[in-house]
């Protein structure tokens, strides 16, 4: 058995060596996607294009506006003179947000009434809009507190001025709430899933296409030996991927790695077994590489979206939440993020590791069975 396996591996290695672009195809896209994700995937909003319409023209209105523009969150693009101009700015996308202060703002404040500020925002990108509004609310609340504080200090009513409540936040594991710390470990899992599933599926379907699969099946090699011979190289490539892009993330993006590298390799191995199973399963449904390509596209995207990579699983409809339970990426993302950022060990991660192990066993069993059938 071992000699038949080793000749399979030797053949895979030779084919890989002959394929001059193979190493390029395996490594360069990973690096590029890692860099693209690392730099571009962020929820942080900076330099929102801002139009301002100040109809009050008072010290107070100017004070508020300068406080808003003093942060790097908002960048002034237009000082509008009319409401119409504001509409125009938003319509043609020259401004994402418009801040309108109506006449009477200072007077209302002086009279002890509530001051009104209007924010018009382009809601097309709801994510950016939501985040920008959050910043704006903070700034306005700050301004408001300063104003009330000043009023109270000059008032003669209070002996000791009343104090408000202060929220002191303390984010653990990612003190700077840096998006990159969240994304990079996720990218490692996601890229590995995409690469390993497609490589496995394509490699097996290719053998079917060129007729070598049938040829091998008339030899004394058993289907399980063929599968092992075919998948082990991809298992190693997958481990190499994970190690390589993890190191890239740690050295280039300075993502902290607090947990155990061994536990990480263990979790990665379980994850890879499950993804190899997925690739093998796809291959049994495909006669040609085109079919495998289409199926791969059909499968991998939902697995990616329903993994918690970017969109919280808890916010998904119940049915989709159930689906995520069979998604190996879901568990691996928990494991890899925890090992990177939290540095926790087996005690915290065993449920996810167990789920990965179960999924690996189930996927491999189903796919090996289907593979047997697909030989007829």
């Amino acid at each position, binding site marked *: 058995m071992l000699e038949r396996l080793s000749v399979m591996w030797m053949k895979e290695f030779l084919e890989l060596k002959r394929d001059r672009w193979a190493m390029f195809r395996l490594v360069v896209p990973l690096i590029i996607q890692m860099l693209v994700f690392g730099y571009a995937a962020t929820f942080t909003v900076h330099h929102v294009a801002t139009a301002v319409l100040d109809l009050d023209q008072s010290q107070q209105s100017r004070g508020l506006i300068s406080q808003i523009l003093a942060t790097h969150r908002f960048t002034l693009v237009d000082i509008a003179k009319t409401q119409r101009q504001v509409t125009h700015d938003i319509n043609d996308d020259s401004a994402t947000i418009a801040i309108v202060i109506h006449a009477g703002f200072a007077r209302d404040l002086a009279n002890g009434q509530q001051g009104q500020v209007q924010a018009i925002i382009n809601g097309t990108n709801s994510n950016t809009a939501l985040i920008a509004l959050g910043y704006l609310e903070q700034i306005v609340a700050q301004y408001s507190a300063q104003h009330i504080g000043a009023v109270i200090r000059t008032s003669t009513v209070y002996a000791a001025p009343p104090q408000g409540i202060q929220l002191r936040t303390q984010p653990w594991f990612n003190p700077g709430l840096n998006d990159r710390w969240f994304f990079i470990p996720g990218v490692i899992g996601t890229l590995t899933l995409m690469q390993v599933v497609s490589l496995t599926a394509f490699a097996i379907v290719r053998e079917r296409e060129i*007729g070598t699969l049938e040829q091998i099946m008339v030899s004394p090699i058993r289907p399980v030996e063929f599968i092992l011979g075919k998948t082990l190289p991809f298992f190693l490539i997958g481990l190499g991927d994970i190690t390589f892009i993890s190191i890239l993330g740690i050295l280039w993006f300075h993502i902290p790695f607090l947990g155990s590298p061994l536990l990480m390799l263990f979790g990665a191995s379980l994850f890879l077994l499950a993804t190899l199973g997925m690739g093998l399963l796809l291959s049994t449904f495909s006669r040609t590489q085109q079919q495998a390509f289409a199926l791969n596209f059909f499968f991998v995207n939902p697995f990616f979206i329903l993994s918690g990579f970017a969109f919280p699983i808890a916010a998904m409809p119940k049915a989709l939440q159930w689906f995520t339970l069979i998604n190996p990426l879901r568990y691996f993302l928990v494991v890899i993020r925890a090992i990177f950022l939290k540095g926790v060990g087996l005690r915290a991660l065993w449920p996810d590791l167990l789920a990965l192990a179960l999924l690996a066993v189930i996927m491999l069993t189903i796919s090996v069975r289907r593979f047997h059938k697909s030989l007829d």
Partner: protein
Amino acid sequence: MSATAPEITIRTQGVSRSFGGVLAINKVDMAILQGEIFGLVGPDGAGKTTIMRMLAGILAPDSGVISVDGVDVVRDAEVAKRHVSYMPQRFGLYEDLTVKENLFFYGELFSVSRKDRLARSKELLAAAGLQPFQSRLAGQLSGGMKQKLGLVCALIHTPRILLLDEPTTGVDPVSRRDFWAILYNLRESGVTIVLSTAYMDEAERCSRLALLHAGEIRHCDTPERLKQAMPGALLAITSQDPRALRALIADRPGVLGVLLMGDRVHVRVDDPSRRIPELTTLLAAQGVADAVITPAEPGIEDVFVALVGAQTPL
């Protein structure tokens, strides 16, 4: 069975197989003797490949028994595979590997020892005329050379039984000749060869033929006896316009069949001594002056059409 009678190497009994409710193979019985070159002849879709794949143990029959070298293929496919080599219509070669590496790979799959493999490769490559190309990538070989390399790979483990599915389709005449030289040599050394073909000249070279039509074996015998079994006698008529000739004589009394063969027609008649003068008169009356009628030796194609009553296999 007497001591001198050749052994039966492959036996099928009542083998049937259908695909998606369509019967592809219907109750096939065959007894193939050791050391013969057994030909499965039939048009495309007759079921040649299906039978081959079942004999090779990679496709299970729905019903029936297949034994190869005394091993029940349906039950012990893995055991049977050690004695058998199957070469599909297109042998699966790794095009990124060289000739030598492909041989190495298939040798190792069958656990051929290094010494045997080297000796065998040398011998087979020489016979196939592939020796100068050992370090060439398989993908850069010509079609005929690829097919010969396939045969060499299929033979690397010295199988006792060789199954060849349309092995020379699309192969140039020179490579085909090499190919057959190898097959004859194998037969000398006692290898049983089953091959399917749609080429009638190739069928003539087999020791026995099974005429396959619509999943059934209609006749099975040596090429000579099949020819003798053909009812009637064969005449060849040459003419400038064989199609018109065929139309003219197809419905004449005593004419059993007319087959277009390039620049002439083969006419099967019940009684040549009576029909030759009749046809000569007819053609003269119809103004076909250039027609020449001669008695002809039947080929396998004539026999196939006469016995199976089907359209020409090609």
